[in-house]
């Protein structure tokens, strides 16, 4: 099996790519997509740690299950919010949703 540090570098890069998406996308749904990538990077980290470190192997996987479930909840609530914003503001671009700024 390949060394743990390689997987960690990979997940770091994946996380940073997701973060890049979060910080540069204008579209709310695009930001949500990027957040999913970040969550996946974290999940791979959990699995890799639990598989190769000296801990009980279930712990990491249980956390991954929790994260997946939370991601599902996040996605549903966030998309409901997106729909609601679109209905009220007729836009889903984050820099145009500026009702509280003035």
């Amino acid at each position: 099996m390949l060394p743990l540090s390689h997987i960690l570098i990979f997940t770091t890069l994946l996380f940073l790519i997701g973060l890049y998406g979060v910080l540069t996308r204008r579209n709310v749904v695009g930001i949500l997509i990027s957040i999913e990538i970040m969550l996946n990077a974290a999940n791979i980290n959990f699995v890799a740690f639990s598989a190769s470190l000296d801990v009980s192997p279930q712990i990491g996987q249980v956390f991954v299950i929790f994260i997946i479930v939370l991601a599902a909840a996040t996605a549903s609530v966030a998309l409901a919010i997106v729909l609601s914003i679109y209905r009220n503001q007729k836009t889903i671009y984050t820099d145009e949703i500026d009702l509280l700024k003035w």
Partner: protein
Amino acid sequence: MDIFGLIGPASFYGFMAGILVLAVLTVTTRNLFHSAIFLAFTLIGVACIYFFLRAEFLGGVQILLYVGAIMTLVIFAIMLTAKMGDPSIPQSNRQRLPVFLALAALAFLLVPQIVKTSWKVVESLKTTSAVELGQALMSEFVLPFELISIVLLAALIGAIAIARSDQ
């Protein structure tokens, strides 16, 4: 015999490179729908990583939940809101270069740290079965499990309440 020692890691590296490329495409593609398609492939690739790490149950759950359910939600949201065919609307804000530089700096900070740290790695890959996972969920993690179900219920009700058009 050696060939397995070669092919396993080689395909692993191949998968990792592919996932990175797909993730970059996901966050940089102008067309949001294509971005969602690339995300679907990324998630399937992550499921394959789980299979490589011998977490088959997680791989199945990943595909079933992420690809089957969350992706569909995302695509629905794109479709219900989008005016994305218009190329005159910029899809990213003006912080692209600073963000890229900052994140590159962060990567240069983190990667040497990861390499430098001495992880207490055990020799063989540890695996666990779905049965053990279920027992862990029902014994050691029963409180978070129940909390998660309450969170899910709350999310369910909240999503319906928010998305409902107020008559």
